[in-house]
């Protein structure tokens, strides 16, 4: 394998390996902001290890699809992680899938997870599936238009090239179109990763659940895969926000020094985003389900304004 292929593999493993840690950091920061000590940052890893050892329970009416879904969801999420620039721009792997592929791979995971929610025949799973698909459908146009804004300034939907273009033309980073697109995608990130104010990741009440309701029937190694995939999804969205809009630090040349700088910059950017998420989740309450479309339409308008600003500001 060539150096670029190795680097792509390392990037992917980095995302898969660090994702539970990022979730742990967010939890810890949130606890501190709320005046609690909170679990140690390594807690998600321990939970995954524990779940992997446990005996999986499967509902009587669940079919083979229920047991296949964790693998499908995990695979699509990891594939997305492989396509997102974490350390370097200009790797050949970015040509395997562009921003549109990333979005639709994530949608594929959601699709199967919703089916798995319906499979055991429990009302909670159906509720979660219905709500999740509603939110996913309404988030799609925001993502589509935000992609347009990004592709417009970079003249490409290739993730590596979007970042490289921004590095070459730093002035575009503060253009109004760019800032608006960032805001729109940030709101979508909250919706897609099931964070407050759209969904509460730490809820224990079935009736308010969205993402957790679909996972309700899962246990053991299946649950471990799904929890891990959710962590990777958050990591990937953060990495997208960080490296598409603020790409500084990404390695342009593949020297060890540049890569070390890239790793440091990634940690810094993810830390800032984690802090922002923790602050937000401490400050806002969960929205009623039927207020979520309003939030998403706000972000749609932001995305549309972003495109308009970029189109007129060419």
């Amino acid at each position: 394998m060539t150096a670029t292929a190795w680097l792509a593999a390392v990037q992917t493993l980095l995302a898969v390996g660090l994702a539970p840690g990022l979730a742990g950091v967010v939890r810890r920061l949130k606890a501190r902001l709320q005046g609690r000590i909170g679990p140690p940052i390594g807690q998600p890893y321990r939970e995954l290890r524990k779940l992997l050892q446990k005996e999986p329970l499967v509902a009587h009416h669940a079919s083979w699809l229920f047991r296949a879904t964790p693998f499908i969801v995990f695979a699509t999420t990891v594939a997305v992680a492989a396509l997102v620039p974490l350390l370097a721009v200009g790797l050949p792997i970015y040509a395997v899938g562009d921003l549109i592929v990333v979005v639709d791979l994530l949608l594929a995971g959601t699709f199967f997870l919703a089916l798995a929610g319906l499979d055991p025949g429990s009302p909670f799973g159906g509720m979660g599936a219905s709500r999740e698909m509603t939110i996913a459908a309404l988030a799609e146009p925001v993502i589509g238009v935000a992609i347009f804004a990004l592709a417009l300034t970079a003249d490409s939907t290739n993730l590596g090239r979007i970042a490289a273009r921004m590095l070459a033309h730093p002035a575009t980073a503060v253009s109004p179109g760019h800032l608006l697109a960032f805001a729109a995608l940030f709101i979508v990130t909250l919706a897609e990763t099931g964070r407050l104010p759209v969904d509460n990741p730490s809820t224990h009440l079935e009736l308010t659940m969205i993402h957790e309701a679909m996972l309700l029937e899962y246990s053991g190694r299946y649950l471990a895969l799904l929890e891990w995939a959710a962590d990777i999804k958050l990591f990937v969205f953060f990495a997208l926000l960080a490296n598409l809009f603020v790409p500084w630090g990404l390695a342009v040349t593949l020297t060890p020094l540049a890569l070390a700088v890239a790793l440091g910059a990634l940690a810094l950017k993810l830390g800032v985003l984690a802090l922002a998420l923790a602050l937000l989740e401490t400050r806002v309450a969960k929205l009623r389900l039927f207020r979520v479309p309003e939030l998403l339409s706000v972000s749609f308008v932001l995305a549309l304004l972003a495109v308009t600003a970029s189109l007129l500001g060419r």
Partner: protein
Amino acid sequence: MPSALWLARAVMLAYAFGAVGALVSRGRAGRALGAAGALAGSLAVLCLGVLVLAGGTPLPLPALVFPISGVLLRVDSLSAVFLLIIGLVGSAAAVYGYGYSAPAPGHPVEPATGGGAGGPRPHPDPRAMGTLLNLLLATMTLQVLADNAFTFLFAWEAMSLATCLFVLTDAADPEAVRAARWYLGMSHAGFAALVGLLLLLSGGDLTIPFEVVRQATLTAGVRDAVFLLAVFAFGTKAGLVPLHVWLPMAHPVAPSQASALMSAVVLKMGIYGLLRIVVDLMHGGPAWWGGVLLGAGALSAVFGILYALLESDLKRLLAFSSIENIGIIWMAIGAGLIFLSYGLLLPASVAFAGALYHALNHAAFKGLLFMGAGAVQRSTGTRNMERLGGLIGTMPWTAGLFLIGAAAVAALPPLNGFASEWLIFQALLEGFRIPQPSTALLMPIAVGILALASGLTAACFVKAFGITFLAIPRSPAAERASEAPFSMRAGMALLAAACIALGLGPFVVVPRLSGALEAMGLTAPGPPSPPLVTRPLGIAGTTGQMSPVLLAAGLLGIVALVHIGLRLAGARAPVRRVDAWGCGRIRQTPRMQYTSAAFAEPLRRVFAELYRPTDDLTVHVHPASEYFVQSIEYHAAVSPWIDRLIYRPMLGLLTRIAGRVRAMQGGSLHLYLLYLCVALLVALLASRWLG
């Protein structure tokens, strides 16, 4: 290429053999002959399409193929793409139809409740189905081969009538009669528009070859008129909103191999006609033409999928989803025309290639889905999803194949729906190259609408698959379901394989499509600069690239690695079966599950402005006190208001006119003879004055 001519003859012979064979022989032999003729003919059509697409040269087919004077046939790469569609779905429908038209396993008739989906009806005559299948396939083949206005019109009308007879297969069903009446009315309105536009286009002589029409120069006013007539004529055929009313009525009532053909192929004839007339013969037009198509397509896409979401009749859901997909194809063609009017050839090529590719892909997955729905209906006797469920256990093959179709229609990578939607997205993203900002702004809005439609499609097909095939059976009929016979599964498997192959191989398909673009006159002069760059194992639009093969390989690799990783980590405790979590309830019954209506409820509320639902809540209380509720009645209905708004006044007007005309009908033979004489006299005088 003499082989192409022989193939074309073989096609017509096979279809004729199948049609006659099915009609004259009885029972199993009749079914076999009908299926064999349709299969042989469709395979020959498929070969013809591949041959022409690979060769790339247009080829006149001497009228020998079809012995009527005035008929002119020719095959080029644009026809070839649609020949592929006919051949692919035709072969699958022939194989599937052999099993489907056999008497179904006996099921006690259940009372048809809710959703309007009736119980099992007496089985339609297999002889009629075999003959009609061959006729329909033959007329559609003729349609895409037509090289003058006369042949085009002849094939068009024959195709409409064959389709109409298919809708009427079960003539005892009032629903089918109503659907056929709507279908006939709408398709004849479209036919009238088609006659008008072809007369305008060919200057009155319907027999001149299209090559002469291509050279003709028309004034801008006439061109605009032709364009608007084309939108109407091909819009009615393709089921464009608001000309779609017949579609959700007609597609569900036909036998399932016919529903599959109607949704997957007959609708595409509208696309073919539009491309042939507007892009090929008229070389596109001003930007507003594209704008009209883009707008109508966007309306169809959103409207179609929103109504599909609420539907609990599985085949009606699929029919509405076809409206959505047709809308997406029209959007791509509209964007292509806009690019063309600004001289942006490259994005226009991507857009038209996306439209053609999506037409092909939609044929594969919608044919598959309709056949799956047919298998479910045949086995359970109902299309109402609220009475289905749990079929993944009893019909594992049908369920697995339907899942592939559902994932393809939801545009999930790496299946075929994704490949073509990706191309269309790429084309729309090119919108920023349009110099005029007001027009350029249409493109991000189109991207938003396309993304919304694809998100809603995912939700819709989670519902369609999840409610029909997963969880606990909702009725005894669903519990007793049995797997479809081998031939039906084979037909579906063929299309499922096509979904996967077309999804993995855009780098094979898309370059071949550029031949069709050339046939439409979309090439820049000079050295061939391939507009659609292929990468190793992938494709590139103008702004991005992807490789479905590598993606699929990566996904499979990750699944394998995770599997091995779990083994190594010692995570192999055996699975234990338990009850689903129920907050302490004792027993789980099918009534506790989410239903189709419940699944769509959040979106129904979000889009209430568009649906205009009518909710009716009646609470009966005890006469003594209003705090003792005796019963609660709740009715919710969503009827498409576009139909109410446009068609009800129009039908009222027509009925009134018909009432006036009735005054002329005296019933006496002498009166009618008098009318004839007067009409003849008027015609003679008119011809003298005008000619």
